[in-house]
């Protein structure tokens, strides 16, 4: 009999069998920017004009729909262990691990960069919404996360982002939906010299090429030779988290 799973119980049973082959799954999945990992590593440069780009692959991303301060919001916050932001631009949580981005008054993206997405990521959150309005959807593969770093990161973004990115207006732990050139993205100032760009998967290829192009002027003085930190571009998420601070 086919596993016609339409209930949480059934899915949980299915999940247990899947979890046993997590490593096998990793071998089968490809991140949207993987084919450009080498170019990103090559374009990463330290020094006074530091600039770098890498993809944070397979991080957990959950889309939530709920109205803040309702039972649904409380249920999701409790299930996920996070406080949801309440105003535009606000980011709550820990940007080295689990955090939440405000997308609209009742729409949020919860991200965990400290671990890789596994099947069934939404089960707990979904279960918490039993009998309540709202939604928790696994969006981990919907967007990828590109991390632009270095003292020149803001200048790279200012070539094509119309929003005010000055630290006075767009400080650390701020995120907005905007456009990078013509690509709709979520833009997140995740640390002092670090921005995360979340394009949808189909735009990842173009977005990486666009950012690399914008970085090029800072790489003129032999930046390609300097590969400091580039080995972590496709390294594990935990190693990346350690090297962040």
């Amino acid at each position, binding site marked *: *009999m*086919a*596993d*016609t799973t*339409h*209930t949480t119980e059934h*899915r949980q049973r*299915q999940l247990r069998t*899947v979890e046993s*082959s997590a490593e*096998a*799954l990793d071998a*089968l*999945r*490809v*991140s*949207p920017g993987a*084919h450009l990992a080498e170019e990103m590593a090559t374009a990463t440069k330290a020094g006074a004009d530091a600039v770098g780009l890498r993809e944070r692959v397979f991080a957990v991303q959950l*889309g939530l*729909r709920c109205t803040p301060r309702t039972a649904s919001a409380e249920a999701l916050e409790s299930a996920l262990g996070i406080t949801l932001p309440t105003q535009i631009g606000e980011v709550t949580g820990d940007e080295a691990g689990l955090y939440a981005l405000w997308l609209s008054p*009742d*729409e949020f993206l919860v991200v965990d960069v400290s671990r890789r997405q596994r*099947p069934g990521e939404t089960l707990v959150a979904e279960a918490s919404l039993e009998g309540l*309005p*709202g*939604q928790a*959807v*696994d*969006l*981990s*593969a*919907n*967007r990828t996360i590109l991390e632009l770093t270095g003292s020149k990161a803001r*200048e790279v973004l*200012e*070539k*094509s*982002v*119309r*929003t005010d990115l*000055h630290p006075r*207006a767009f400080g650390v732990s701020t995120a907005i939906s905007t456009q990078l*050139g*013509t690509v709709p993205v979520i833009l997140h100032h995740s640390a002092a010299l670090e921005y995360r760009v979340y394009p*949808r*998967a*189909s*735009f990842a*290829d*173009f*977005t990486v*090429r*666009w950012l690399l*192009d*914008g970085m*090029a*002027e*800072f790489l*003129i*003085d032999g930046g390609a030779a300097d590969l400091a930190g580039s080995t972590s571009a496709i390294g594990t998420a935990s190693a990346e988290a350690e090297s962040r601070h």
Partner: protein
Amino acid sequence: MTHSARPSGSTHLSGPTRLDHATGIDRSRHISFSVDGQQHTGFAGDTIASALIASGRIDCGASTYLGRSRGILSAGIEESNALVRVKGRIPGDVSESMLPATRVPITEGLEADYLSGLGILDPGQDELVYEHKHIHVDVLIVGAGPAGLAAAREAGKSGARTLLLDDRSAPGGSLLSSPGRSVEGALDESIDEVPAPEWIEATVNGFAEAEEITYRPNTTVFGSYDSNFFVALEDRTRELVETEGTGSGASAGSADSDRDDTASRAGTRQRVWHIRAKQVVLATGAHERPIVFADNDRPGIMLASAVRTYLNRFGVAAGQRIAIAATNDSAYELLADLHAAGIDVPAIIDSRATASAMAERVVDTTGTRLILGSTVTGTAGEGPAGRISRVTVAALDEDAVAAGHGEDIDVDLLAVAGGFSPVIHLHGQRRGPIVWRADIAAFVPKTPVRDQFTVGAINGDYSLEAALKDGAEAGNAAANRSGFAAALTVPKAAAMTFAPARPLWLVTSAEDDHTALTTHFIDFQRDQSVADVQRAMNAGMRSVEHIKRYTSISTGGDQGKTSAVNAIGAITSILGETDLGSVGHTTFRAPFAPVPFAALAGRRKGELFDPARITAIHPWHVAHGAEFEDVGGWKRPWYYPRPGEDMEAAVLREGKAVRESVGFQDASTLGKIEIRGTDAGEFLGQIYTNGFKKLGVGKGRYGLMCTPDGMIFDDGVTLRVAEDRYLMTTTTGGAATVLEWLEEWHQTEWPHLDVVFTSVTEQWSTVAVAGPRSRDVIAKIAPNLDVSNENFEFMGFRETTLAGGIPARICRISFSGELAFEVNVENYYGLAVWEAVAEAGAEFDITPYGTEVMHVLRAEKGFIIVGQDTDGTVTPQDAGMEWIVSKFKDFIGKRSYSRIDTAREDRKHLVGVLPVDGTTRLAEGAQLITSGTPVTPEAGPVPMIGHVTSSYMSPSLDRPIGLAFVENGRNRTGEIIQSPVAGSLVDVEITSPVFYDPEGNRRDG
């Protein structure tokens, strides 16, 4: 090019002849360059114009339309004569035309040619980098003259984010034309008790200490828009050329290189700045005007301010015997400087009847002959290349009419001081009000635009003291208004007063007929004279806007910087009026100065022109030779030609594979929306024409949605994932629109319904597997799944785990009429699953197919494609889909079906159209007509009865088929109608739109 117009002799080859004193060149750096094939040498800091004048060449070739010899008129952006084409200087560079020689800094090896006002686009590929930059500031200051510098200093010290932009290569504005040292009889131009150059340097150096001041030279603000949005062009050509030319890391060298080392560096040629400013200070200065007399266009007739700039900044005497035609006090600054430099000035001719205080002082000091109440009425051009050789001077009467033939004076240069036109363009682009001030003969801003200030010469205040005071106060106030307070410090300078001007609009004698004044030039670039203005007015024009367009005055690359006010003056004079304000100014529009298209395009060219959305499976498509079709921003495989195959052959092969064995398609691009809520079924029932409340969990249903006018809007299959959860699919192109549609109806009409939506389009990769052997393929890749028809029914879906552990949702959905499945996996796994399908299907010769075959196969079944067969005027009933329109519930669009026009039976219906000859393929979009309808032009309009919406060669029927919308079509089955193909009419039979397997026997395999 008029080489003959060039002066002969060896002066070009002798080194630059310079005066001892110059403020803007570096005599330690010689630079060689050529113009019109002739070698010249100049110094770092020179423009092409300054170096050429130093070499003895002032002419710049023939004018565009009349072929008159012309020379360098100005020393800046207002140049209307001296336009050059500069050849590409570094790898990837191309020739650029229409550059003012007065603005192009010379670089080693530069090759330029004078243009006679007509540029030639270089067909070569420009590989240099042009970029954009977006910046928000508290205070934007346009112009780095004394007023702008004072404003920037005062704004910046408050901590406000301050941006100072200037089109020149060095700060100082009008002070760059000054001697920068004490000159006998001249005005005292010291600031805060130090010489102006020292104050400028100290002020700009101070910017480096304030973190939030950015100063950019070579940056022309060319557009001003609502809400203080400004656009500017930064030109880094010289830095780029010098860096590329001497190896990386070389400094631009001269004193006016970028002060801010954080941004500009080699690599970018030009940068378009997009600036959003809270407050703006316009300190844009003023441009001098020529005087309109006979033969006022010869080489060697130059703006007095330009003569002064070449003298003091570049150490170049533009002539050895210079007469000055004055209408105001500014000309006496030049006189003092020329005298100090030892240049012979035979006379200064002032239109004013009495000597002003300044005139008296300078004339006394210099011992120059002053001719009052007079002006130049004509010139002779017997010098080299038509250069001025003599001026005729005549006295003016009270009405400024010249009395007879006066005195001739031999000269080799005439400096004209016709008065200044404040640069009010950016103010005017915002429709800022302007007012004519007769005392200084200038249009000035009446009041600043909201959140803007105007300071310095733009207001007609030409005194240094006023510029510094107004600039400092505006900078302070602008910062204050944006929330940054600081104590105000006003730089001090000596008080200056200027006597009233006596402008001259038309220098004529009593017997002159305006239509004969063909050498009284107003617009040099357009070769338009007073006679042309009179001709326009004789044709009935009165409005300055009409006359501008009739004559083309002010429409050249210089955009009327020197001609606009003179044209208005001429119009006013011809009308017999005196108030230029009553004629008014033409409308100001961006750009203030020409902007290369390459700069506006920026990096958006080649592969970065437009984002191509690609699926996870895209690399496989590329590797397997797919041709792509652009759909909703996506690259979708169109067909996969094998070597030697054309499109038709590939499509027939792919189509046969699906009908006879199995094919697979990347269907990842379809829009997908997760919908949850206890009212989700109710909501979907309102959106779709058919119901979804009773759809069983684990089942899917095709749905059609309409706009309120009842017309088909989008379609797709929606799955019921759980009691309170649905997954909607949309067309590829409609994904974003449909999500917005759902949100709009939910938020505005039915907010009480418990339902929410999230786009999951890109969370999933979808592999469609279609054809009689598809079940075998699915069985292999999904070993846990019972794929039998009994246990996996049509429109059902199952969640399973694929070989390798990939979680998947598999649906039995068919868009081809064949047995078919869709495998949905998280996007990461798309490529792996696609390859698994390819491997599993290999034994059945599984064939990848593209969008073209998908279109063909669905057309064989008579399935519509929204947006191809429909166009927003098609109801479900028109499309023969009444079966999907609920009679029992309400939904968006339902009311419209009772409208008389929507309800009538003879609307255009979806039908099949079969060419009777069985071989001719109809053209998509072709009209259909009743057989025998005359189609000759003589017979008049041809009544159309419909048009072809889809047309293909059918792989299953081995003949062309088509879909069409035809008036009353369903009731005309069997009728022969006609359609044009390649110039002749072919007979077409109206049929059912379902051509293949009308019983639906193939669906279950």
